[in-house]
């Protein structure tokens, strides 16, 4: 708390003194805003680790959850995936809390948090399904990424990674090709306007190198053969509480307000080897705009423009009345001509597809063969 308020204080002093290098004037801001062309913001925040020693990964992702929520993205547009086994872990000396700093100023778990995928639901399959929106028809809307061509998506991943893969809860792993292909499918279906991909793992930069779809801005915490380091430990909690890369990201974002005009390059300036102790990577070749023109709130916030006073009169009245002034009553409209619909023979989604059937037959055959040989 002290530390961050000190930074805010320093910054405001500096900005007063130097006429604030981070502030652009209104005209500039308007041109900047006009360029993005998005109308809604979404965030996908994933912590892929389990167990107490990975406390920091949960703290990472909850910190960013708190930030995007503070900056105005509604919970219905945040998809949070985490193992959620830290706050109520028997080893937690402060039950029901998660902190990202040893000063324990902000309880990340205290405010209302809405976890969409919890525990063993955090799998590669669910993550890929989430991105490509391939679910059962009755999958709830609140757990789906219902983006369109006007959506800006912020995707944050943290966990244990390696060269071109990211481990999901010791059970499976996602490869860089999988994410790249998923993004391509999103691009084909026009499911995003721009994506900001951020990853904080070991060898993180290898994860975004396979991307080939347009309008993706990517940053990673460490290059190939490099580890991503934690920032500091809390002696009372007994484990590291946050990673360096995320710490400096948050440290910067804490200063951002909902209507801020600060641009992305200022955030990237924070990513130095001195701060992070590994080589951060930034990939801009797929991205159409200059990084210095991109507002942070293009991805972290949700500035919704509203329309005031374009209301038209009497529409309900004329919908409710016949030309001679008599009212259409609730029952009489039912007698109006109803439209016919054309029916289709729907294919049953249940039952086996041919490929599945073939595989089952083959499996039974194989099992029979094995039994035969055992005798």
């Amino acid at each position, binding site marked *: 708390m002290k530390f961050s308020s000190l930074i805010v204080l320093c910054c405001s002093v500096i900005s007063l003194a130097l006429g604030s290098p981070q502030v652009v004037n209104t005209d500039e801001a308007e041109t900047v805003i006009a360029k993005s062309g998005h109308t809604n913001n979404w965030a996908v925040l994933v912590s892929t680790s389990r167990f107490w020693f990975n406390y920091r990964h949960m703290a990472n992702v909850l910190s960013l959850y708190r930030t995007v929520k503070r900056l105005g993205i509604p919970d219905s547009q945040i998809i949070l995936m985490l193992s959620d086994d830290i706050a109520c872990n028997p080893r937690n000396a402060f039950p029901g809390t998660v902190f990202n700093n040893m000063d324990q100023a902000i309880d990340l778990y205290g405010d209302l948090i809405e976890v969409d995928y919890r525990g063993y639901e955090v799998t590669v399959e669910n993550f890929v399904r989430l991105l490509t929106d391939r679910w059962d028809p009755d999958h709830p809307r609140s757990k789906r990424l219902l983006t369109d061509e006007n959506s800006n998506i912020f995707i944050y991943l943290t966990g244990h990674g390696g060269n071109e893969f990211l481990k999901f809860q010791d059970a499976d792993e996602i490869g860089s090709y999988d994410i790249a292909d998923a993004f391509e499918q999103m691009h084909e279906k026009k499911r995003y306007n721009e994506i900001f991909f951020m990853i904080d793992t070991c060898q993180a930069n290898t994860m975004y190198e396979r991307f080939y779809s347009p309008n993706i801005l990517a940053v990673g915490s460490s290059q190939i053969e490099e580890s991503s380091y934690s920032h500091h430990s809390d002696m009372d909690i007994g484990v590291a509480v946050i990673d360096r890369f995320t710490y400096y990201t948050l440290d910067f974002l804490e200063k951002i307000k909902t209507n801020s005009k600060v641009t992305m390059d200022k955030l990237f300036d924070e990513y130095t080897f001195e701060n992070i102790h590994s080589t951060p990577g930034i990939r801009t070749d797929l991205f159409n705009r200059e990084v210095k023109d991109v507002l942070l709130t293009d991805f972290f916030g949700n500035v919704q423009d509203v329309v005031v006073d374009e209301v038209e009169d009497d529409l*309900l009245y*004329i919908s409710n009345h016949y030309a001679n002034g008599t009212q259409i009553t609730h029952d009489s409209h039912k007698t109006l001509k109803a439209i016919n619909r*054309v029916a289709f023979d729907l294919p049953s*989604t249940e039952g086996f597809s041919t490929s599945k059937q073939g595989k089952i037959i083959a499996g039974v055959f194989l099992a029979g063969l094995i039994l035969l040989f055992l005798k």
Partner: protein
Amino acid sequence: MTSPATTTDSARSNVTFIRRTIVAIVFVMLVSLGYPLVMSTTTVYRAELPTQEVTTLANNFKHELHFRIPVFLDIPNGLEHFISSAQSSVDEYLYAKHPELKGFWGLDLQRLQGEKNEEEDYILRFDIIDKDANEDASESFFISPFSRATTLGLTTSLINANKVDEFLRIILLDEIFGQEIQQLSNLVLEAPHPSLQTDVVIPYSPKYNVVFTLLTENGKTIEWDIEKAIDLFQPAFHKLQHFTNFSINTQIQYYSKPSTEIAFNEEQNSYIITPESLSTFINFGDWNLITHDILPTINFLVFFPESNYDGIKTIIDKSSTNSFLVPQWGGVKILNKDMPILKDSTVSIHEDELLPIMEIFTSQLYQLLGAPEAPKSPNIRVDILSRIAFVKNIGKSLETLKSLIKLTESLNEISVPETTKNYVNLSLDAIKKSFAYLNNEQNYGLAMSLSADALKFSDKAFFEKEMVQQAYFPSEHKLAVFLPLLGPVGSIVFLGFLKVLLDRRKEKRDAVKREKTE
């Protein structure tokens, strides 16, 4: 001495023979059973999609659509020739201005004969204004807001100057169908749409969930006559039935504070919500607005501020209706009670108070659905909306199918199940049927609902659950998976094969040796 040697020899040769046969059988079995088994269990099933059909349809569909909207003119006997001249005047003017619409969209002027219902058909009536009776009279027109009928007031001077068809053309092309022509022309030319307009519009769905929510800032009991108010809404929803359907829910939420505090203005003695704070007015975090519904939701909020209890108004700056619209989301109205609230009495919001609010919500609903702003008649608006949505839906579903085919071609590992293929075919089927209903019958309602089906099927084809390419395996991972499986079997077969080979070689060597010794 020789006999035991021969028996061991023959026994040995018998053993070698059996061994060789076993090796041969295992080999044959491996090749003829094992290989197909491995192949059939590891290959990804990819159904054949009608690539050719989709591509041709996607590239040419605009040439296959023919809108001929019938307009019935109520003209007296003996003036039938007027129709053909009016028709050519309309066509000439329209296609000179919008050559891209030729063959795609047009009006079909006909004479009104027999019983036509002005609720269903476009009817034009003429009214001749007697200039002698009224000196200041001029040409006039009246598009009925209740139906699809239009009345043209003609002066004798206009008729004498032979300008009736010009007048008719202006009314038809500018006043009645003006917005439709503009939007369709943009669609055909694939012009970038004016962004602000479309940003308000909620993405199309064949059914929406409409939620009316009353929010109060405290826990005091409040009632509203929402059921009766919704009954008023029903005819408006019914008029939209060709376009989409609605399911309606209502709720009252207590203790709902806006995310930013509303400042009190002493000059106006009221709480003022500034336009800047409107964008963060809705408290997405605290207000229980997520419906967990499968359908997309249109929200209509009535916010009942606590200041009502003190008799102080809460006003949205620069809004005469005290309401605002959140693009692609819904509408909000801040409700101020006209009468002071008696202490300890239950607040109830009467139907009469809800009526103007419902009026605002109707207007916002039309904006959210993307209805044109003119003419006033909801019937004509919904017609135009349906025709434009029809073209958009067809375009969108074909685009989805095209993307699907492109994806399956570029991603070799992804499986294409039979259900995907079925949905692609269903979508194509719906598209073709909708074309037939449009071109043969000019039945816009059915064409529209079919296009919605096509859109639904194409989305289902694209978002088929089984089409998840989940695991890219680098080749060393594949080796790691298959080695423990195939290794034991493979090594035994390999060693057995090696043994047979070595035996054979040894036998040959022995035979040579024996020859030499003999």
